[in-house]
């Protein structure tokens, strides 16, 4: 008998891994690692689908549970709002971004940093109105969001997230932050109904960044944003592992 090649071993392992994924016995980290591979590995996809087919009949073991009456209307509403936003987003993405007037007001923000959330929020509303109303005729229909990220210990504002649409945000520092050697700040967000936070990447202290959220559901009220301290290459698990340095929730303005 010939010994199986390394390649066959890998195939075998991946097939078993795909089976464990479908069964559901893998840890969150292992699940995320496999899901990250799926888009680029058709063979792994095929192995997963084969196991899905294999076990599907056993879903019949579970009793059917009639959903509550409001579930479908809720789905329909989410669907409609998604589509409306998608339609609006398409023409908007073709035009160049509006001038970053927000930055002109940064000294104001820095001043507000020590005042805590209430003062910062009031100013946020004022600023946003000043920034958007003269330039944007669609201000009444496009929701605008503001998030003030506070340090959990001191409750002082460290960053502001400003969103001029539900698909584009800007993270603006209000001061500097000392990142320990070998560490980095990672930016995360999580909507109320999401199962887990999603990484928006690493952030340089003191540097503003602008991000498009094309891969994510549209920004929503109360959506959580946070900056955690992670290894300098980012969280090894794809989920926040380090301490929360700044945290805040989106407020529609």
């Amino acid at each position, binding site marked *: 008998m010939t010994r199986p090649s390394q390649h066959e071993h890998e195939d075998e392992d991946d097939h078993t891994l795909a089976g*464990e994924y*479908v069964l559901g016995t893998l840890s*969150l980290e292992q699940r995320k690692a496999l899901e990250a591979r799926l888009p680029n590995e058709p063979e792994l996809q095929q192995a997963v689908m084969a196991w899905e087919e294999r076990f*599907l009949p*056993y879903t*019949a073991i579970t009793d059917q549970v009639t959903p509550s009456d409001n579930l479908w209307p809720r789905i329909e509403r989410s669907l409609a709002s998604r589509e409306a936003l998608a339609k609006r987003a398409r023409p908007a993405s073709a035009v160049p971004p509006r001038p970053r007037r927000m930055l002109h007001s940064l000294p104001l923000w820095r001043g507000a940093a020590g005042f805590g959330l209430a003062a910062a929020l009031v100013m946020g509303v004022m600023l946003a109105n000043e920034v958007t109303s003269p330039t944007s005729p669609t201000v009444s229909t496009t929701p605008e969001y503001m998030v003030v990220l506070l340090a959990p210990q001191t409750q002082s504002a460290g960053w502001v997230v400003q969103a001029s649409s539900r698909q584009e945000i800007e993270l603006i520092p209000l001061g500097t932050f000392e990142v320990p050697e070998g560490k980095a700040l990672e930016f995360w967000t999580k909507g109320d109904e999401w199962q887990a936070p999603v990484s928006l990447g690493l952030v340089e202290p003191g540097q503003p960044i602008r991000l498009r959220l094309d891969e994510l559901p549209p920004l929503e009220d109360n959506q959580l944003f946070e900056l955690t301290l992670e290894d300098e290459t980012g969280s090894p698990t794809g989920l926040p592992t380090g301490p929360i340095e700044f945290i805040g929730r989106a407020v529609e303005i």
Partner: protein
Amino acid sequence: MTDVSSEFDHAAALANCARGEHDALHQLYVHEGARLLGVVIRIVKDRGMAEDIVHDACLNIWQRADSFDPAKGSARAWIFSVARHLALNAIRYRDREVTFDSHDPTELDLDEHFQHAFVVDEAFDWQTGQRMDSCLEELEPERRNCVLHAYVDGLSHAEIAAHTGAPLGTVKAWIKRSLLRLRECMA
């Protein structure tokens, strides 16, 4: 048991979803909503969370319908996999967050649920009208139950170990070997 799913063309529903027809998603929901919710509740063991997951699954299905390729598998397996993996990710994430307190009432509930699940096992016919396929049937009953508990109840290796009394390493090996045997048998 009548198989309602066979009366419904899941692939056509997905194709219509991909074309933007809301009614196709609604038809899918009408046909499979209760089944999807049943599958998800069994995994997450919380009705509110389960409805949230079915909500998210429907939006996911809608959004990704155009990526479904009938050449790669059945539409029904694809649809259920979307909901199951959202549910599995959710409980793995939740379990990671929870620090267990021995007086925590939710833990007690879970324990009761598990005990219940394992007690009924003895008398429980996993087939419930479905054909118990020959490959799975060839596995020893204990291993077969591990595999099915994992699939149906979303139990992790550690949970299966805790509630069967078998060491964690043994459970892991059982499942791995069961999957290998199933694969050989299917080939």
